[in-house]
């Protein structure tokens, strides 16, 4: 399993964070070297993260990116709306499954996914939709899951988590606000990954982070930036732990 998180930050910035562990089902396969890239750049204003059967996901992401590039060339644009990217992913993924696992009715499809007869994974895709003038508008997160036959599903809130999301969802519902700086939001997401990893071996404590906005192209955080985020995670953990200790209280003198 894995933990992938996408969040919106201040100034319509999108932050993508994921662990880097390889697992076979729930069994950790790479605890001594968490090196798997689970975040993928789609365009300069669009990215995705995966959870589940990574081999199948990557086998679909490659032709998906080729299709996106064709779409960009066809339109003469440098970006496409995230909803269009989601439709392309849906088409490419269903084609792949149909090619290798035969054409299935929806009940057959769901049954086969649940029975692990065919590979299962989901992605979170984030980017911007376009307005009437074709300009990039609000940031948007879309989830596509094999269990739903990759039908795009818009995330109605400002963050989403896939893989092993329970601890992350608790922390995000408690402490996330989208008006925070990118660094604050990225640190909270990284903290979610480290805390989940501390309780679940199938999620690694090493992570990668990418971000983009209307003004800033998709980029991965450098090693130096990741080190700063790790220090911030240690500070958050320390704040949580020490908040439980008794601290000095000063009694007010006299009467109010």
């Amino acid at each position, binding site marked *: 399993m894995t933990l992938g998180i996408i969040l919106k930050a201040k100034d319509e910035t999108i932050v993508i964070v994921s662990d880097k562990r390889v697992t076979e089902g729930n069994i950790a396969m790479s605890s001594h070297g968490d090196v798997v890239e689970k975040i993928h750049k789609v365009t300069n204003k669009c990215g995705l993260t995966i959870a589940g059967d990574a081999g199948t996901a990557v086998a679909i992401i490659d032709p998906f990116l080729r299709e996106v590039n064709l779409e960009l060339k066809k339109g003469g644009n440098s970006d496409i709306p995230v909803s269009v990217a989601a439709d392309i992913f849906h088409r490419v993924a269903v084609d792949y499954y149909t090619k290798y696992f035969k054409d299935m009715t929806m009940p057959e499809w769901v049954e086969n996914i649940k029975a692990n007869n065919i590979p299962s994974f989901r992605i979170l895709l984030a980017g911007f939709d376009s307005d009437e003038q074709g300009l990039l508008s609000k940031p948007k997160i879309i989830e596509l899951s094999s269990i739903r036959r990759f039908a795009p599903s818009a995330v109605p809130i400002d963050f989403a988590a896939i893989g092993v999301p329970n601890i992350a969802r608790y922390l995000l519902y408690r402490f996330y606000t989208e008006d925070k700086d990118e660094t604050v939001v990225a640190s909270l997401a990284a903290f979610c990954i480290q805390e989940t990893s501390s309780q679940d071996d199938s999620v690694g404590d090493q992570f990668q982070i990418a971000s983009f906005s209307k003004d800033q192209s998709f980029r991965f955080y450098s090693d130096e930036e990741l080190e700063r985020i790790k*220090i911030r995670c240690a*500070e958050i953990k320390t704040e949580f732990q*020490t908040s439980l200790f008794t601290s*000095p209280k000063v009694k007010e003198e006299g009467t109010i």
Partner: protein
Amino acid sequence: MSYKSADGSYYVFYVGKADKSLKEDLVSVLLNTSNPCLKTHLSNLECYFRYAVVADKEERKNIEKTLYDHFGGPKCNLEIPLGEKVSVNTN
């Protein structure tokens, strides 16, 4: 004592005193402290300390109180130290 933050600054989390010089074994004393806040900081963060040898007991007490107030009541000082404000070089 202070820790290095992600923003590059150093933040003070404890001010203390000892009745005799702990120069040689200060680190082992700190690592074995019963103060849970200190333990947590030392375990989670990159920590540093600065010290001065002050022979006079009353002066040590006053300096501790002055530094405690100067640093806004560091969070790992679980008791407010007693003493009077004195002139201390905090740099």
